[in-house]
């Protein structure tokens, strides 16, 4: 199981590097609609969604995953203020630095010092959220997605 997770992470990280998404300037230029717009990220999303759409169709027909006992996939459909405000905030940070979690962590191998600054700040941001949301933490458990 552990080797499968390592392999998945490595394939994911290799995909980020090959697709140009390890480059914050390319990501920022995708978000720069009124400037030097770079559509590459749209191709990455299309390429990533295709195999996953097939995987979800297979998942519906499987009783359990191939190397684990059960599927743990989000079941909630609730669209609330947390989802909207959190996603808006994430988008603001994404626009500021041109980095989201996957490329930032993959970047630790490519541009260690700069990527580390972002990743440490990101972990601190996660800890701040957790410390502020302790009483509501049970609710987060039900809506975990990643």
């Amino acid at each position, binding site marked *: *199981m552990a080797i499968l*997770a390592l392999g998945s992470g490595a*394939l994911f990280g290799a995909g980020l590097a090959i697709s140009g998404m390890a480059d914050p300037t390319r990501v920022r230029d995708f978000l720069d609609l009124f400037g030097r717009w770079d559509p590459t990220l749209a191709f990455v999303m299309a390429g990533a969604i295709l195999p996953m759409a097939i995987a979800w169709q297979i998942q519906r027909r499987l009783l359990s995953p191939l190397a684990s006992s059960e599927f743990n996939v989000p079941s909630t459909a609730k669209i609330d203020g947390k989802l909207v405000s959190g996603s808006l905030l994430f988008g603001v940070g994404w626009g500021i*630095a041109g980095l989201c979690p996957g490329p930032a962590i993959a970047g630790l*191998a490519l541009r260690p010092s700069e990527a580390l*600054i972002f990743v440490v700040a990101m972990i601190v941001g*996660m800890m701040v*959220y957790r410390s502020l949301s302790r009483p509501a933490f049970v609710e987060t458990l039900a809506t975990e997605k990643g």
Partner: protein
Amino acid sequence: MIPDYAMPVQGLIGGLMIGVAAAVMLLGLGRIAGVSGLLARMMRISDSGPPLVLAGMFTVGLPLGAFIVSLLSGPVETRYPESAVILIVGGLVVGFGTRLGSGCTSGHGVCGLSRLSKRSVVATLCFMGAGFATVAIMNGLGLGW
């Protein structure tokens, strides 16, 4: 139509690899390949999610895969913002936002959209829109990089 600095073919190939990686997590281990959630799990910031070792292995795999690509193909282009302030503020907001919104580009964008999850469609529209607006505002204020 597509500018010459774009990388449509590499984007599609890299994207397919990302999608297959997420499919391995789903069909092999029954888990969503949401990077923010797995990082939070590895750091014990989240109480839910896969066993710590799985979250840790996936997270360590990300730089390993990028490193292997740089070994095989030469340096990977990484143009980072020069300002540490931009990296720190961006990181803090991304970390807080992804926990509050239960996901990022991988969890909501790749895994959620491909499943047509309404939550993920809303989340993706929100972070895309906020990203477009943020870059436009930063450029307007002369803070673009």
